């Protein structure tokens, strides 16, 4: 009986997806370890025990507490690392959500970096320009947060509008709006009066909202994780993730958005306004990215450094692997974002404690991204051929209903014409 329940659990789609992602992560970590080992063996500077230290850090770097007097690695509860992990995860959760939500509605929002930038600019400008001696800082924070989200939403709506009304490819439109955002932000900061707020010792302009006394509430998290940058932003991100999960899965709006994403024609047939919904889901997606930027930069001491446009914010693009690893499930996005930011911390620990540098974690992330892209293959391997029999593909082949199936009797290669 118990075995039956176990196998039923194993056969569930969600379980399969989770296992596939966990397997990707494990393989990624192992590949990282192998590279650490190879680098260790081929490098004169690194001993075998040095390589062993590196491998241990890859798996448990988040719990690293430095080295003991004898030079051995020590592990334990490291509140600073954990707190920083939560802090860094905050914008990743949001950009991951941005991409996952768009994907669930059939859109690939590669415009998250641009939306993130617009969110950054607007939330910073609002937070810096409302005088806190007149308006309470909490209120300024809320206004700035909403303004950042709105800016992202409007920026995200642009590719949505282009797609819905002019049938322009979303991906192309998103890439264009990314660079438009980069230049627009550079220009607007350039002509703004916020330059005066820059610290004179640094080149370029650096903005942080602490100048104006605006900072995200700590919500007691600084007590839990002393010495870290953590603040209430992560809680906001988690609440938004849960809200998105409910929106997509439980509401009529989510149902409509998914219907449009999955089959625009059928949605239209059922009287769903497909154009409105495409714009709406891009706006929601953009709003999430913009809110992510607001959560990050409104934290107070986070510096925004922008001399001229050089590249798009990486956190925007990193939302893609976060969403991939989470198989676009908003709740899973929280965990995959935490994992990605953990790797960041691991990278820092590697740099600090061993002869390796943080780039080794990029190898791990790259491996995981590749494997996530192959997630379908991994899921098929997990489920085995037997399960596959029940899958649509085979069922279709077995019942070649004329209009549906890639009808078996239609050779693509044109063999019958030959």
């Amino acid at each position, binding site marked *: 009986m118990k075995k039956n329940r176990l196998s039923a659990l194993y056969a569930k789609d969600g379980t399969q997806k989770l296992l596939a992602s966990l397997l990707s992560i494990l393989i990624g970590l192992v590949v990282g370890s192998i590279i650490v080992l190879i680098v260790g063996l081929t490098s004169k500077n690194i001993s075998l025990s040095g390589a062993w230290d590196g491998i241990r850090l890859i798996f448990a770097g988040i719990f690293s507490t430095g080295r003991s007097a004898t030079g051995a690695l020590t592990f334990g509860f490291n509140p600073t690392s954990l707190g920083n992990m939560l802090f860094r995860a905050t914008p990743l959760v949001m950009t991951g959500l941005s991409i996952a939500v768009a994907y669930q509605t059939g859109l690939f929002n590669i415009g998250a970096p641009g939306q993130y930038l617009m969110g950054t600019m607007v939330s910073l400008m609002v937070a810096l320009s409302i005088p806190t001696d007149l308006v309470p800082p909490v209120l300024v924070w809320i206004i700035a947060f909403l303004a950042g989200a709105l800016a992202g939403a409007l920026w995200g709506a642009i590719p949505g509008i282009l797609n819905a009304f002019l049938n322009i490819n979303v991906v192309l439109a998103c890439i264009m709006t990314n660079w438009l955002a980069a230049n627009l932000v550079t220009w607007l900061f350039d002509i703004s009066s916020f330059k005066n707020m820059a610290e004179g010792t640094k080149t370029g302009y650096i903005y942080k909202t602490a100048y104006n006394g605006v900072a995200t509430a700590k919500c007691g998290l600084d007590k839990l994780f002393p010495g870290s940058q953590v603040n209430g932003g992560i809680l906001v991100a988690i609440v938004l993730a849960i809200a998105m999960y409910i929106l997509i899965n439980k509401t009529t709006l989510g*149902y409509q958005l998914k219907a449009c994403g*999955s089959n625009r024609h059928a949605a239209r047939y059922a009287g769903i306004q497909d154009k409105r919904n495409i714009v709406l889901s891009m706006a929601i997606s953009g709003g999430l990215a913009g809110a992510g930027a607001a959560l990050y930069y409104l934290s107070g001491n986070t510096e925004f450094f922008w001399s001229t446009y050089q590249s798009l914010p990486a956190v925007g693009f990193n939302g893609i692997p976060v969403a991939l690893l989470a198989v676009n499930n908003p709740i899973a996005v929280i965990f995959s974002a935490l994992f990605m930011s953990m790797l960041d911390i691991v990278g820092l620990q590697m740099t600090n404690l061993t002869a390796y540098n943080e780039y080794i974690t990029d190898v791990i992330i790259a491996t995981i991204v590749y494997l996530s892209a192959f997630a379908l293959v991994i899921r098929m391997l997990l489920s085995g051929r037997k399960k596959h029999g029940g899958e*649509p593909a085979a069922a279709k*082949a*077995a*019942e070649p209903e004329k*209009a549906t199936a890639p009808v078996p*009797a239609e050779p693509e290669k044109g063999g019958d014409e030959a």
Partner: protein
Amino acid sequence: MDKAPEYVVEMLHITKEFPGIIANDDITLQLRKGEIHALLGENGAGKSTLMSVLFGLYQPEAGEIRKDGVKVEINNPNDATALKIGMVHQHFKLVDVFTVLDNIILGAETTKMGFLQKKAARKKVEALSEKYGLKVDLDAKVEDITVGMQQRVEILKMLYRDNEILIFDEPTAVLTPQEIEELMATMKEFAKEGKSILFISHKLNEIMEVSDRVTVLRKGKYVGTVNTRDTDKQALSNMMVGRPVQLEVVKTPAEPGEEVLKVEDLCVPSHLHKRNAVNHVSFSVRAGEIVCIAGIDGNGQSELVYGLTGLDKASAGKITLCGKDISHASIRQRGENMSHIPEDRHKHGLVLDFSLEQNLVLQTFREPRFQKGGFIKKDAVRQYSDQLIEQFDVRSGQGSVTVARSMSGGNQQKAIIARELDRQKSLVVAVQPTRGLDVGAIEYIHGQLVKERDEGKAILLVSLELDEVMSLSDRILVIYEGELVGEFDPKTISVQELGLYMAGAKRADGKGEQQ
């Protein structure tokens, strides 16, 4: 028949499995030289799989194929071609922008030092076309010719390659009655010459008319092979479905009530050309009658339905539904009094990646019984879905949570019909509701439509199947090139005459084209 005991093609004990499903279970099909052999079966019976095995697209797990008594391996379609096996697919495999001649020689071009030798090819094709009366315009582009002519091009392709075994997959689905007759004659001519023909169909009339023998498959299993002259339609359909089937639609004379739909002077522009796809069309449908729009595919039926349902904008005209002018209403507003069984069940009818229950509430999810404050009532949806599945006998692997994509075409269609008819709207627009379905499912769907009519619904049926038009409708409107060219009573008009109107050779106002 009696002079040659040996078979040109034998498929012996063929078993083809897909994981979880046995598509062909120990099937034997023996084709005599010079015979027309019909292969009959419902959707999912394994006809196409069997033909795919013969064509080298699938390798069977068990069984063997013999050509002229010799065992052969057919690993790909090229092997099949080398064995002189040719096939006309239901959906033609033609290059639209090539000329007819180019299409025929494509893949079998004769070249000299890399240059095409079109002259010789043209001569050969002309000779074949002459010999079999397959009239085609060799220099026309395929996109400009009729479907009937495209099929002749496909047949010429097989002849050009000197194929001896000709497979026709549902060849009559797209043809007018006249064209069907011509095709039947051509097939008989081929058989007389010693070519062997495999004819896949589920239309019993045609099988009775043209075939010598019939092999029947059911659910992947071999049911039997019978001589056509020893059987009849009823016996064949019973063999195919496995139970006695009602072939004729049983219905009482219509008792039309008040006017439900009134269309005046409707024009819908075409996406393909600058003219109107629907040109100044006027008609009405009353409660308690089934009005059928008959016509050959592509004469504006789809656009007419798009214009009525709001999927496309009409450029002129007035539509009145239940006394309300809906000419400019949104799709959703029109849906308040109209159910729509769409022509393309995959494009419009279903969200294939949604579960069955999600598809069943596609039109009704906004109603208070399924949502509260924007949140979907999951239990209510499940309960409703289970009830519809039961009531309409929609079969699927996992009931309400089955992904629509994995269901068979017949059951997908049943799901759409369940959804649309259960909405209880005054007007039902049913577009080719039985396309591609087998007799069992057709019997059911026709029964449901008649039931709706008897309950006082107005039904507008669009169909390409003349059998369906004749047996189901109370009034027939023929559409030709976007215009209604005549209105008939199915009891007083013959299929032949209807065909002439559909082909544009006759029209009620006497403007008919000369053939």
